[in-house]
């Protein structure tokens, strides 16, 4: 395994949790609900995934537990915002705070224990191919699930009647209700799907990325996922592009911070000077680079206001009380 391959594989591992959480939130927001609790649901997924895997020894049971816990945790949000019609922003923030606190408490006994890692896939022959073998055929299972998720969400939203109904609820809940579409019911399902995805994304961190439990181990990834959905103008493949861009820059800047310039004299001039320039700027700037670059790129590709308008769920974050 050469260095490039290793870097690429770490990029994939860093991007996968963002992608899974963001796909869930995309479906939630397309239904017109703004759930700012992604971070909280993710960290609940991390701790429950770790705990279940640690106790049963099966990372798959861990992932399943994380999905269930994420969905159930999001049900709290759904009940508060959809049934009791509380403010979505405030409730989402509260969910994040609750998730961070609760996970710290529940995870206390697991701190410092070695976790169970979900093994990478190995397909004899294919996985051993040079360069692409490990990258395409030897990743962890959640990577493949995340890609399937993008395809499935994109197909569901734009090619199925159920997806059309979900988008209609997000576009105009008043009209949807007048047509007899069960607005609240659809939003409950969407929110729970988002919770399940966030839970799974959290489990990826504690079962694949760094198989252990550390308090606050999501480290703001839930917020990144939220931002990706908005900056990608609620389109699945743009979320995919955004997640990988962010993941790639995060890993790249870590490597730039770590390299020893003296050992790189063999590089062609321009590359060497570029690296030298990057190394000379403060590390805080390098750390912020992924955030800046992702925002800039996604804003640039979302310049078409017409397309953005058409894809923006017009009822996003608005409370809905059906009159009966």
């Amino acid at each position, binding site marked *: 395994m050469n260095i490039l391959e290793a870097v690429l594989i770490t990029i994939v591992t860093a991007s996968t949790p963002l992608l899974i959480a963001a796909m869930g939130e995309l479906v939630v927001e397309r239904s017109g609900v703004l759930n700012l609790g992604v971070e909280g649901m993710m960290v609940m997924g991390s701790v429950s995934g770790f705990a279940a895997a640690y106790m049963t020894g099966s990372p798959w049971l861990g992932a399943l537990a994380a999905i269930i816990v994420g969905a159930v945790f999001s049900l709290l949000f759904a009940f508060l915002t959809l049934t009791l019609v509380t403010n979505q922003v405030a409730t989402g923030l509260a969910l994040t705070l609750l998730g961070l606190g609760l996970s710290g408490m529940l995870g206390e006994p697991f701190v410092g224990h070695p976790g169970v890692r979900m093994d990478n896939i190995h397909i004899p022959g294919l996985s051993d191919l040079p360069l692409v073998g490990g990258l395409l055929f030897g990743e962890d299972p959640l990577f493949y699930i995340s890609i399937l998720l993008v395809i499935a969400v994109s197909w569901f939203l734009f090619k199925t009647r159920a997806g059309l109904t979900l988008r209609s609820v997000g*576009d105009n809940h008043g009209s949807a209700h007048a047509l007899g579409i069960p607005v609240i019911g659809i939003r409950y399902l969407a929110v729970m799907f988002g919770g399940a995805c966030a839970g799974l994304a959290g489990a990826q961190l504690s079962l694949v990325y760094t198989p252990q439990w550390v308090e606050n181990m999501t480290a703001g990834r839930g917020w990144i996922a939220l931002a990706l959905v908005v900056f990608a103008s609620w389109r699945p493949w743009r979320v995919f592009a955004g997640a990988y861009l962010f993941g790639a820059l995060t890993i790249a800047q870590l490597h730039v911070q770590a390299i020893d310039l003296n050992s790189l004299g063999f590089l062609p001039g321009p590359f060497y000077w570029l690296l030298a320039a990057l190394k000379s700027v403060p590390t805080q700037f390098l750390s912020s680079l992924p955030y800046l670059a992702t925002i800039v790129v996604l804003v640039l590709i979302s310049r078409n206001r017409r397309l953005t308008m*058409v894809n923006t769920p017009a009822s996003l974050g608005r409370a809905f009380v059906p009159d009966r």
Partner: protein
Amino acid sequence: MDAEGGNAGEALLDVRGLTKIFGSLRACDGVDLKINRGEIHALLGENGAGKSTFVKMLFGSLEPYSGEIRWKGDKVRITSPGEARRLGIGMVFQHFSLFDALTAAENIALSLDDGSPIGTIAAKAKALSYSYGLPLDPYSLVGDLSVGERQRIEIIRCLLQTPDLIILDEPTSVLTPQEADKLFETLERLRSEGKSILYISHRLEEVKRMCDGATVLRHGKVVGHCDPRQETAASLARMMVGSEVSAVTRPPVDTKADHSPLLEIRDLSRKAATPFSVPLRAISLSVKAGEVIGIAGVAGNGQGEFFEAVSGEALQDNAGSVRISGKDAGRLSISKRRLLGAAFVPEERLGHGAAPLMSLSENLLLSRYSTDRKAFLGPLGTIRTATIESASERIIKHMDVRMSGKDPEAAALSGGNLQKFIVGRELDRQPSVMVVNQPTWGVDAGAAARIRQALIELARGGSAVLVISQDLDELFEISDYVAVMHDGAMSQPFAIAEATFEKIGLLMGGAAPEQAHPVGEIA
């Protein structure tokens, strides 16, 4: 379409004692109504009489408190719009229940309960739309369509479900006279096919022309059943309102008085701010002292954008494009324009014309703190509550605003009374320029007459009044000149004596073959 269902002579729909209560309001109170097969039945009543509540119960989107509905002789409970559709009841909504970000075909698919693919639905909708002479491009984005075209989608969507009863809620309130004629042809054809129609309107001439029977509602109660063909418009109006409506009088313009232009719009252009808004195209108009100029047009042809540019909600690059009292105002804020003597009444009452959860006197202060700073505010910017409350009471008295309690929240007033207060608040300043968007939309007949008379009196007192309205009857009642907006451009104003419904209707429709709308690309 089962013409055999039920015995001959039996009513298709027979509603008895339908009641709906919202809090302390009996929105519908024991309403009886009967519709036969092949009948166009009118449901008449003023805004707030309970018409919409009644049909929402028929369509299953509201649950009745008591009463029964018999459909083809059987007692039914309609619990959801889906249930209503299965029974054979279709509905065309007043405020369209369409989704802007979806295509026409997707909108139609959402209300069909079969799972056929979009392509099939699009083809069926297109074929049906052409057979009724209501051509429709199923792949156009609803946000790009005119209101007339949106209504076509609603009608086609309704017809695709092959209903026996079609409910149309105020279908012509957004159409040009020519589009309305087209709709009437369609309805005649549906009647000849044996379908029944429940036609909700407050336009009496239409009802007299089209309907076989009518039920009149007032304050939630049925006040009479009649055959509209045997009635006069005046007798129907009396049934609806319950008393004679005082006619608006428009004295001739005093030719000796000063008629200098007080509001001038010069070559006003504006780019579309959002993909679904309309750009303004080189609008020029001059409103002179003593005159009322009316602006007609189908909703969504740039009236809102025009009002924003005139009122200062949207600033212009060119300061000279809006001139108030002889001064360039295109780059001035709303308050600065008010200081030049202008007053504005926006279309949306709650949230735009008034802050819903603030009291009337607070709303008065909000719109007049700059023009009446000396009277309303103390030296340190403190609020002189007593002065403002007495000014508020003066307005309430002058405009005959009816409400419960002293100084209630704006949201607690009915639409008509709040509109009287908002218009009165501006009139109270004696502005030299008054711009009003939809002055009497959703306002009952008595209040509408009061507002219209007040606008005429203001003009005759030497102010320039500009009224934007979709209601042609209203414009004919109060305007000295009428101009028409279409697709962001404005026609030359012409004297009201030279205007006819037909002429204005043609201009509202663009007076040119209907242009094809570009079909939007969607991701």
